[in-house]
């Protein structure tokens, strides 16, 4: 059985239009014009148990609307959803028992209480048997390294510490699916790597199904086998990162550090996309010119200190996908 099946999901919102200014606000008291915004315009996808997928799209693309429908918060206009065989909005309570949800921007912990008290309360909210709770808590405390601040009030934690606690909080009831909404936003490098490591471990070792929404393409590159790109309520692309690259960014980059400060690099089959001091970045299509041939030509024509070939950054590819869709 698939973990999540989504078929032709449509969701529209009615938005009140307000006229600007004080007078407009006043007029809005008596008469409001509404317009309909389509957040999801027939989205379909299927997620198998144990997959870790990146769910990405620009702001307002419909990411959080999808997550809210998948977790039973919102009702769709039409379409079908099955989360572990349940329709979330008809079976809210049974669906959410199986879900862990982390919002990077806000915490679900009780602000003024020590972390451990929030965990204990969540145990009672989810009716976790004491034995299971003990075992999961010990495990999470070790893996996420929470021991030193379990007794510290949440408001005194650093962002990285808080995020680790929030991830633990979402897993205490042993969910089978985890939604992560920007889990690395605002984290320092060490915390970010720790969080990524942990997510990878959860997915690979425990076969937890994970949906990750993020704007950080390094998260996607580091974690996701599969990426779903949505834009204006449509699925733009669905596949592995390599497939995405093959479809939208076949070009490669040759980066050359010249010996000569003001040497000019020219080649009929490559274009200079950047120039910073001695460093020149050339873009080329490997289908038209073999990288080895280009390297040979450039090194023959110039004094070269160092060179390397790389894929264009994933951000650029994604930006290109978004642009191509509008």
């Amino acid at each position, binding site marked *: 059985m698939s973990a999540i099946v989504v078929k032709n999901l449509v969701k529209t919102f009615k938005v009140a239009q307000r006229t600007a200014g004080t007078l407009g606000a006043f007029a809005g008291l008596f008469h409001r014009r509404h317009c309909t915004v389509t957040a999801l315009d027939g989205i379909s996808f299927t997620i198998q148990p144990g997959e870790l997928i990146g769910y990405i799209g620009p702001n307002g693309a419909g990411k959080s*609307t999808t997550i809210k429908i998948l977790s039973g*918060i*919102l009702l769709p206009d039409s379409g079908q959803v099955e989360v572990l065989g349940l329709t979330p909005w008809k079976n*809210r309570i049974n669906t959410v*028992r199986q879900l862990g*949800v982390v919002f990077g921007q806000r915490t679900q912990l009780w*602000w*003024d209480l020590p972390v451990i008290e929030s965990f204990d309360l969540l145990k009672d909210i989810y*009716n976790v048997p004491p034995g299971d709770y003990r075992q999961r808590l010990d495990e999470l405390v070790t893996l996420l390294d929470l021991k030193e601040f379990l007794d510290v009030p949440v408001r005194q934690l650093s962002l990285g510490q808080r995020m680790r606690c929030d991830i633990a909080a979402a897993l205490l009831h042993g969910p089978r699916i985890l939604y992560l909404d920007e889990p690395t936003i605002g984290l320092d490098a060490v915390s970010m790597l720790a969080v990524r490591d942990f997510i990878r471990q959860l997915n690979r070792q425990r076969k937890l199904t994970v949906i990750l929404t993020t704007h950080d393409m390094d998260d996607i590159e580091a974690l996701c086998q599969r990426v779903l790109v949505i834009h204006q309520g449509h699925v733009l692309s669905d596949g592995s990162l390599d497939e995405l690259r093959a479809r939208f960014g076949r070009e490669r980059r040759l980066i050359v550090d010249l010996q000569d400060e003001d040497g000019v690099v020219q080649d009929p089959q490559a274009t200079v996309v950047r120039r910073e001091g001695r460093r020149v970045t050339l873009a080329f299509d490997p289908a038209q010119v073999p990288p080895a041939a280009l390297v040979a030509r450039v090194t023959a024509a110039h004094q070269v200190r160092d060179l390397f070939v790389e894929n264009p950054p994933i951000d650029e590819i994604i930006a290109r996908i978004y642009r191509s869709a509008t």
Partner: protein
Amino acid sequence: MNAVGLYFRYVGVSFRSQMQYRWSTILSTLGVFITLALEFAAIWGLFHRFGTLRGWTLAEVALLYGIVTVGFAMAEGVARGFDMFGNMVRMGDFDRLLLRPRPLALQVAGQELGMHRAGRAIQGAMVLGWAWTSLHLGWQWQLLGLLGLAILGTACLFYGIYILQATYCFWSIQSLEVFSVVTYGASETAQFPMSIYRPWFRRFFTFVMPLAAVTYYPALPLLGRSDGTLRTPTWFGWVSPLIGVAFLLASLWVWRFGVRHYRSTGS
């Protein structure tokens, strides 16, 4: 853990949270107490000068005052989650409650305890105690039972209004001062006998917001009085506080419509 157990867990958590700001809580409690004590002193002053109010003595009015104040304080203390619900919707925190496998009204009710409202409860209880002894009502269990029922009915009625106020937030996040008029205004109105008000006003507080049913009518048999104008039978005062309980249940029913609206529109 069942719903009742969980509710008390929430209450315990809220209590411990507020104990982090111990002095703030104590001073607010004291502030509420002093404000209300001065308010009652003003009423005492008026009676001292003018004697009675349409045949009602200070002790009799104090009984009404005590019932409505204690009942209102109880509702205010435990309904704070509903009172502050607008913020919750505005900040998007209500979504978190929808992500937990528990009834929503239970979770909102457990959000926050209005501990500083104890100031109102203490002041009300003191006025009530004074009225009870001055009127020589003694320790008859029927009368004490009716008093308890009246206070419970009042608390339920005000709780229901807080739920309706919260339900309104599903449609608009603008706070409506109308609800303060209904809660605070009503609690002040009910401090005096209904018989002093004009008929339309009295009807509003009997049939629309059944405030008289939980304060004035049960007070009549306690005081051995009868209703001069609406001519309700004496037994009515013994059962009318149940109307407050019915109001609370009706509010919960309306609340469910609000939740359904929120889940289909988002906010």
